[in-house]
């Protein structure tokens, strides 16, 4: 585990206010979900999960075909498709469009994909103003932070933090009423919506048979982003495809319920192409940027490619005992929680944060709630094996490997093993089944770190074999 990862975890664990905030927010999302997927109100929930998994599997296994179908249908409705291998490519496409249309102000609706490629920073570097318009995203953009949670980006902040940043950035003094803070953001952002030249959204789904982008949200900022400016650009990972508009009847029932416990979010937009003839409003241009940025790499492993089924509901974060203690900012990338733990190593290499796949108790809660049935614990185990294989390749953790080699040597030789367990049986002093004091020669290095958080059960005074022998049969 890297020291940064460790340090961030320690900082979160020792902040009681933050602990309470994470615990309360995730707890609330969990209980709302539980009510929404209860078999009394939604008897077909398991069937929907199975269907969603089958549809995603089919789409990912034939992704090139659906990408081309999607592209044809976007073009047929008068839209444009751009392909981007990297975040730089995405920024280049947008900068090119902005320049030729003389645009300076961009409004953005929430998108994890654009967070992933630091799009705002790239655009601002080239002199464009790019404003996040989801309330939580707007606040964290003002604070130059990254989202704390996939669906609740400002989960870690209090009204007082918001008052501080509004005072610094907007000149509003001492406003600590949440309702008033929200209305201040509404006024500031409404002005931006009406003046913006370009609206950038993400995409919850790309629909191949329609050439459409589907967006779900509660605030109305995605609707404004995609309705008010003359140009709408959707930035989406290539894995967001589903084959048919009719598949939304499955996915929409799962997404809102799994994320926030809503049968449907307040707004669902199904957008295909620019405004049509005689329409009074709506964008004049519709662009979709299809982003790879490491996704094609994930397809190579037939087992782990299911990581790309994710619809970003955040349920695995809420239900993860690890996320609920260490929070979103401890994770090394914008994707946190169990889904972050499986996709980060696959995008950036297992060496980037070798501790990540191990930061899990493998309790399985994530897989149990995943609306598209991604087997997260299984992928974590495979990634652990990948970490160990890479350590072997790079001759890292030689000491640990030597310890396990010794253990394997002893454990596979019965005589030696018996002698070792007899020696261990003499360890003391003991109390209540635990060793009160661990012998100095053992209490070193990683063992010491391990023991700092745990008690070591005392070895049995007699082994099972000895007791068996004494019973005389």
């Amino acid at each position, binding site marked *: 585990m890297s020291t940064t990862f460790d340090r961030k975890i320690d900082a979160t664990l020792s902040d009681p206010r933050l602990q309470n905030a994470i615990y309360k927010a995730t707890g609330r999302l969990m209980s709302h979900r539980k009510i929404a997927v209860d078999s009394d109100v939604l008897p077909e929930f398991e069937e929907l999960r199975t269907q969603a998994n089958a549809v995603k599997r*089919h789409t990912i296994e034939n992704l*090139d075909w659906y*990408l081309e179908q999607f592209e044809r249908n976007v073009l047929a409705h008068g839209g444009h498709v751009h*392909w981007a291998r990297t975040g730089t490519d995405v920024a280049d496409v947008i900068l090119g469009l902005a320049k030729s249309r003389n645009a300076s102000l961009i409004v953005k609706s929430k998108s994890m994909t654009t967070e992933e490629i630091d799009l705002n920073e790239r655009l601002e570097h080239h002199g464009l103003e790019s404003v996040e318009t989801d309330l939580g995203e707007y606040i964290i953009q003002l604070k130059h932070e990254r989202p704390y949670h996939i669906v609740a980006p400002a989960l870690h902040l209090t009204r007082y933090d918001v008052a501080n940043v509004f005072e610094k950035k907007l000149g509003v003094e001492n406003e600590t009423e949440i*309702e008033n803070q929200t209305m201040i953001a509404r006024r500031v952002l409404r002005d931006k919506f009406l003046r913006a030249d370009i609206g950038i959204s993400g995409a919850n789904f790309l629909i191949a048979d329609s050439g459409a982008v589907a967006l779900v949200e509660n605030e109305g900022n995605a609707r404004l982003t995609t*309705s008010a400016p003359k140009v709408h650009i959707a930035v989406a990972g290539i894995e967001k495809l589903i084959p048919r*508009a009719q*598949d939304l*009847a499955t996915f929409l029932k799962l997404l809102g319920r799994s994320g926030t416990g809503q049968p449907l979010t307040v707004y669902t937009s199904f957008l295909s*192409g620019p405004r049509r003839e005689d329409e009074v409003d709506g964008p004049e241009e519709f662009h979709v940027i299809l982003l790879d940025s490491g996704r094609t790499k994930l397809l190579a492993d037939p087992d782990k490619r299911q990581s790309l089924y994710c619809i970003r509901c955040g349920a695995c974060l809420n239900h993860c005992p690890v996320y609920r203690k260490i929070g979103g900012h401890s994770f090394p990338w914008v994707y946190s929680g169990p889904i972050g733990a499986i996709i980060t190593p696959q995008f950036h290499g297992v060496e980037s944060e070798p501790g990540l796949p191990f930061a899990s108790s493998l309790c399985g809660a994530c897989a149990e709630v995943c609306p598209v049935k991604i087997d997260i614990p299984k992928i974590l185990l495979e990634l652990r094996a990948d970490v160990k294989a890479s350590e072997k390749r790079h001759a890292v953790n030689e000491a640990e490997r030597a310890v396990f080699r010794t253990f394997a040597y002893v454990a596979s030789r019965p005589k030696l093993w018996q002698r070792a367990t007899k020696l261990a049986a003499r360890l003391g002093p003991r109390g209540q089944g635990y060793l009160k004091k661990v012998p100095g020669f053992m209490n070193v290095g990683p063992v010491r770190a391990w023991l700092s958080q745990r008690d070591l059960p005392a070895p049995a005074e007699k082994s099972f074999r000895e007791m068996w022998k004494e019973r005389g049969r």
Partner: protein
Amino acid sequence: MTAREAILRDVRRNLGRAEGATPPPPPEPRIRIPEVSREDRIARMLERVSALAGKTLHARSAGDAVEYVAARTAGQTAVASNAPFLRQIGVTELPGVQSGFTDERNLREACASAEIGITSADYALADTGTLVMMASPAEARLVSLLPPVHMAIVPAERILTGLDELFSLHPLPASETSSMVLITGPSRTADIEQILVRGVHGPGEIHVVVVD
């Protein structure tokens, strides 16, 4: 090599697929439409909207619906969409109600300053209390979006059971409209301390009037 070619090449290589190979048939879409009587659909629709803090009226006549709208718009400014239904029942004639916009700039200015936006809806979904708005010359997007209050007047026969029925009637919405928006309750956020606040960007007050 273009980015397009490179991405498609990598996808195919890593999936082991040949270019242009037709995929096996996808799983059948899952569409289940329950039998629900008209009265039950209306009741369910209104109950769901109320549960989301929306205001509702089951109007026995067009006159009742217009009277309800008139009471809310009295002394306020409102914009009505170009839906023929609104004109037919006389909503567009109410004092303070502007309608008939065909110019974007004028529509935008009117919606940005109006207190109330009045629309019809292509459908309503009883299961979730949802309004289905398909953008068209009759229904501009900003009328249900910019004003802080949204009133939707929907003929009862347009209430469907839910998403499955909608996508069964319109398997390809893109062939009919550039924008189909589902509206389920007032605009809301809980981004600060999980405290619910309505009307953050879209309308915080929503009225659904079902007309027999």
